[in-house]
């Protein structure tokens, strides 16, 4: 297996991009990544997208986007694993370069979610849950994560305030990210008094509906000649699945897919939780960040709430989590999220993260998750 470097990253402003179409957003973003890489021809492309069919009525987007990017005829694949689509696209691109099948692989992620009503978007997202056991009974993702939150509070004493602190921290970070959908700060009080969505989760516990894309260019590390910026390599990649129905799990507060994917990535990178300097996790709801940190082994089981309360995961804490603002403040165009996490880690490891730069970051981890934990992808990155 060859070592794989990320030689270019691209991300554009996220939000309600009503003036742009799916292809506009993707091409604009992918061109930034290609420009950053100094490359204009790619060998193959992977695009993470959860539900372009339900969101904009367009399937077959791998070919469409390759064409509009000026790369017609290349092998191009659209990858779907719910909200982990972007992370999984990266893993497949990584394997293709590592195996020697291709040299230049473009990995993008995109979702255009605001062309439908909130109701239709909730339905589209809900298709990532188990339709027969969850969807048909009226369950939506806020409901599923509310069950997880309630169980975590009962079992470990996690407090309502600790959940709020996750959102406050991520908005604090997001306020320093000009590309974020909601680049402003919020307070614990504003979270606790925001509109109830699914008890105990309120609207400010939930990531938003977003239009956006992100892209990275992968290349064999041994072939990199240009040394104008620090080289960032993917040194570990892990992928695992779990039951997609929450009711089939032994413990709904434990994310087995995250644990297994992380184990695989740690092993490949020959690293452990203690070696990680900076993390991007899938905080689709505040409770998710807490459970993910536990499954990644960053904190003990049940201690995720304490970690945020004690400041361990803040920008100046021991292990900054979601310096980008996370899904909460940066936005969550589902298929793009897993790739955007990588964009952030690369910027941080290269020292290009502006006001939210984490000092002395050398090893980074990105964790992307589908549904209520039915799939997860974890990558570890190191700066040379």
């Amino acid at each position, binding site marked *: 297996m060859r070592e794989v470097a990320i030689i270019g990253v691209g991300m554009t402003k996220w939000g*309600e991009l*009503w*003036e742009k179409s799916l292809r506009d957003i993707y091409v604009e973003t992918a061109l930034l990544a290609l420009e950053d890489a100094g490359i204009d021809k790619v060998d193959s492309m992977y695009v993470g997208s959860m539900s372009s069919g339900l969101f904009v009525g367009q399937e077959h987007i791998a070919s469409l986007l390759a064409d509009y990017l000026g790369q017609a005829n290349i092998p191009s694949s659209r990858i779907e694993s719910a909200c982990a689509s972007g992370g999984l696209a990266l893993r497949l691109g990584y394997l293709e370069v590592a195996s020697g099948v291709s040299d230049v692989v473009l990995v993008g992620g995109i979702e255009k979610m*605001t062309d439908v*009503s*909130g109701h239709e978007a909730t339905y589209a997202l809900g298709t990532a849950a188990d339709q027969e056991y969850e969807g048909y009974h009226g369950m939506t993702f806020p409901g599923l994560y509310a069950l997880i939150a309630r169980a975590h509070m009962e079992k470990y004493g996690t407090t309502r305030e600790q959940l709020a602190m996750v959102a406050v921290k991520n908005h604090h970070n997001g306020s320093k990210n000009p590309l974020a959908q909601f680049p402003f700060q919020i307070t614990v009080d504003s979270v606790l008094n925001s*509109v*109830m969505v699914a008890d105990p989760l309120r609207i400010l516990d939930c990531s938003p509906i977003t239009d956006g894309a992100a892209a990275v260019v992968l290349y064999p590390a041994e072939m990199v000649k240009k040394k104008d910026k620090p080289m960032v390599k993917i040194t570990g990649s892990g992928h695992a699945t779990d039951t997609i129905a929450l009711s089939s799990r032994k413990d709904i507060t434990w994310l087995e897919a995250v644990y297994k994917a992380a184990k695989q990535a740690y092993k490949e990178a020959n690293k452990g939780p203690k070696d990680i300097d900076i993390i991007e996790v899938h905080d689709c709801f505040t409770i998710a960040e807490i459970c993910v940190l536990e499954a990644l082994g960053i904190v003990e089981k049940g201690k995720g709430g304490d970690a945020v309360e004690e400041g361990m995961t803040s920008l100046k804490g021991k292990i900054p989590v979601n310096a980008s603002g996370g899904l909460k403040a940066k936005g969550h165009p589902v298929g793009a999220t897993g790739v955007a996490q990588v964009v952030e880690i690369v910027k941080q490891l290269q020292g290009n993260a502006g006001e939210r730069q984490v000092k002395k970051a050398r090893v980074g981890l990105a964790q992307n998750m589908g549904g209520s934990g039915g799939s997860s992808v974890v990558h570890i990155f190191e700066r040379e």
Partner: protein
Amino acid sequence: MEGIVGYGACIPRNRIKVEEIAKVWGADAPSYKRGLMLEEKSVPSPDQDTITMSVEATKNALKRAPIDPKEIGAVYVGSESHPYAVKPSGTVLAEAIGATPEVHTADFEFACKAGTEGMYVALNLVKAGEIKYGLAVGADTSQGAPGDALEYSAAAGAAAFIFGKENVVAEAVDTYSYMTDTPDFWRREYQYYPQHGGRFTGDPAYFKHIIGAGKGIMEKAGMKPSDFNYVIFHQPNGKFPFRVGKMLGFEKKQIEPGWLVSKLGNTYSGSSPLGLTATLDISEPGDKILIVSYGSGAGSDAFIFEVTDRIKEVKDLAPRTRELLDKNRNYLEYGEYAKFRQKIKKAD
């Protein structure tokens, strides 16, 4: 110089509170009240519709205008809730006030700006010398689907304006219109309730067009926000008019006199016109007033008026708009409201 000769308002006496609606749907009333700055809204009685409210508002306008209705050469009713799909509202109104048969009549429809459209045409026909007086009414018994966010605001009311060149109460200094094809809110034929694009009704719709029309008319007239005593914007909820006012450089105190929405709701075609009647009620000679409507689909009409000495004589010849809003209110429970709005119907 041409301008407003008489103006009048009509507001149904029935009201329903935000809490009463929220209770039925299990919604969070405080967050609606805080988020949209809405407290209650007007509800038409079972026998009130766009036509009856237009007649009542026009009668009040005629009380303030010393004219013979026969001299009215144009009667325009702007509404998105005309009682008939085919058959004008304007003919009934023209007949009821005795303006027929030598009169031009048309019904206008452009979501919430149909009222100011009629005003624009009537005023300009007067200006062109085609007619002596022109009447324009903005009236609606607007519909919000049960449980939809619109149900908290969709209200009823009418405002009527008679334009002419003599006995002018407020001179029309300038007009301006700003329009694009922006589908933020619509109702297809045979649909009972409108649909809307949620948050899309904000920045690319309401704000873009009001700011476009507001800036456009001030530039055309060579005026700036501080030149105006009062300003009225379309009022789909309590928050938007203040936000757009701030964006254009107006102060809260310029907006407040015409800001009726928290107690009235959104009267659609009647919304900014009713704000104008309330503002005229408290204005003094020489005051300058800017009004900018907004209609989904989407566009804004803007007018600048300068109040004349005559305002002192006419303001109290008919009920003031705030009086209609504050006095004689009758609070409904949701059941009565549902019946009044024909959300439930008695079996035959």
